[in-house]
C-alpha cells in the first residue's frame, strides 16, 4: 500500500519537471524562465520527496527527506530572487505583452 502510494506521488511529480524543462528551453526571457523553473521544480520535487518519505523505513529518514525539500525551497527561492534582481539591475528589462516576439516563427 505504502509502496503504491509513494510510486503514485513520484509519477505525479514527473510531469512538473518535464513542464519546467520545456519552459526553460522555450520561454522568451530570464524572468519567465525563472518562473517556470522555481514554480514547477518546487512542486515536482515536493511530490517526489513526499513519495520517497512515504516509502521510507523510519520516521527519521522521512523527516530528513522532507528537510531536504525545505532546504531546496529556501535556496531556490533566494537564488531566483538574486538572479532576477541582478538581471533587472544589469540586464534586459522584462518583456511586455505588447512586445513583438522575435522567435515566434522559429
Amino acid at each position: 500500500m505504502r509502496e503504491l502510494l509513494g510510486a503514485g506521488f513520484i509519477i505525479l511529480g514527473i510531469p512538473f519537471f518535464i513542464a519546467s524543462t520545456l519552459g526553460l528551453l522555450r520561454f522568451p526571457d530570464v524572468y519567465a524562465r525563472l518562473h517556470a523553473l522555481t514554480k514547477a521544480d518546487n512542486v515536482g520535487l515536493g511530490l517526489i520527496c513526499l513519495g520517497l518519505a512515504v516509502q521510507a523505513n523510519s520516521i527519521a529518514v522521512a523527516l530528513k527527506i522532507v528537510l531536504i525539500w525545505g532546504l531546496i525551497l529556501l535556496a531556490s527561492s533566494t537564488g531566483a530572487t538574486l538572479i532576477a534582481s541582478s538581471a533587472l539591475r544589469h540586464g534586459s528589462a522584462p518583456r511586455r505583452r505588447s512586445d513583438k516576439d522575435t522567435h515566434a516563427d522559429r
Partner: protein
Amino acid sequence: MLIVDLLLALAALVTAGQCLLLPGLFRAVANLMAFGLVMALIWVRLEAPDVALAEAAIGAGITGALLLTAAGQLPASQRTLQSMASGATRWKIFIFVMVVLITGSLWMTVLALPKPGLVAEVAVVLPDSGAEHAVTAILLNLRGIDTLLEVAVMLCAVAAIWSLQKAIPPPALGDAYPGLPTLARWLHPLFLLTFSYFLWQGTHAPGGAFPAAAVLGAGGVLLLLTGSIVWMHQGAYNLLLRWLLAAGLLFFLATALSGLLMTGTLYGLPPRFASTFIIAIEVATALSIALMLMTFYLFGRPGRRL
C-alpha cells in the same frame, strides 16, 4: 542499473566537454560546477560515500565559488574565452587523434592492471587503530603522516596566497540583495549541525574530518561572500588568525611526537589511547581545514598591517 551508470557517464562527459570547448568564462565555470555534482553521484555509485560527501561540498561548492568570484574581479577583456573549435582542420585532426590514442592506451592499461588491494591488511589492524570506519582509521592513524603533510601543503598554499597581494574586500551585497545575508545567517546553524554530525559519525560510518571540514568551509565561504565575517579582514585579529591557521598543523605534529615518545616510532599511537587521540586529531584537522578553505577565499593577505 547499468543504464544509470551510462547516463551518469554521459552527463559527466557532456559537462566536461562543454567546460573545455565552449566559449564564455561564466558558462565554462557553471559547467565545471555541474560536472562536480555529477562526479559526486558517480562516487555514490562506486560505493565511495566519503569521497562523494567531500566532492559535493568542495568540487561543486567551494571551487565554483572561488572561480566565480575571481571571474567577477577580471576586466572584460579577460572574461572572453575563445571557443576551442577554432583552428585549422589539420590541427583538429591532430587533437582528435591524440585524444583517441591517450584514451585507448590508458583504458587498456587500467583494465589490465592487477588489483591486489589492501583489504585484508587493513582489516587486521583496524581493531587496534581506534576507529571502526576504515577510511577514518587510515586518514588519521595508519597513514596519518599523509594527512599531516596534506595540512602542511594547505598551510603553504595559504602562505603563498598571502605573499602575493592584499585581500580582496567582500562586495557590499547586503543593500542590493537583502535575501542573501539572511539566508546565510539562517542556514549557518544547520551547517554547524551537519559539521558536528559528520565528526561524531566519522569514527564508525562514512563522514569524518574531511567532509565535515568541507561543509563548514562552504558555510564559512557563504558568510564571507555576504560580508558577515568582519574580523577576518581586520588587522587587529591578524595575529590570532595566523595562530588559528597554524594550530591544526602544530597539534598534529605534537600528536606525532607524543607517539614517538610513547612507542618509539613516529606517529605510532598506542592502541589503548588511540580512540581518544583520533577524536582530538579529527576535531583539530577539521577545524583547521575549514578555516584554511575560508582563507583561500580572501585571495590575499587580510588586514591593513603588512
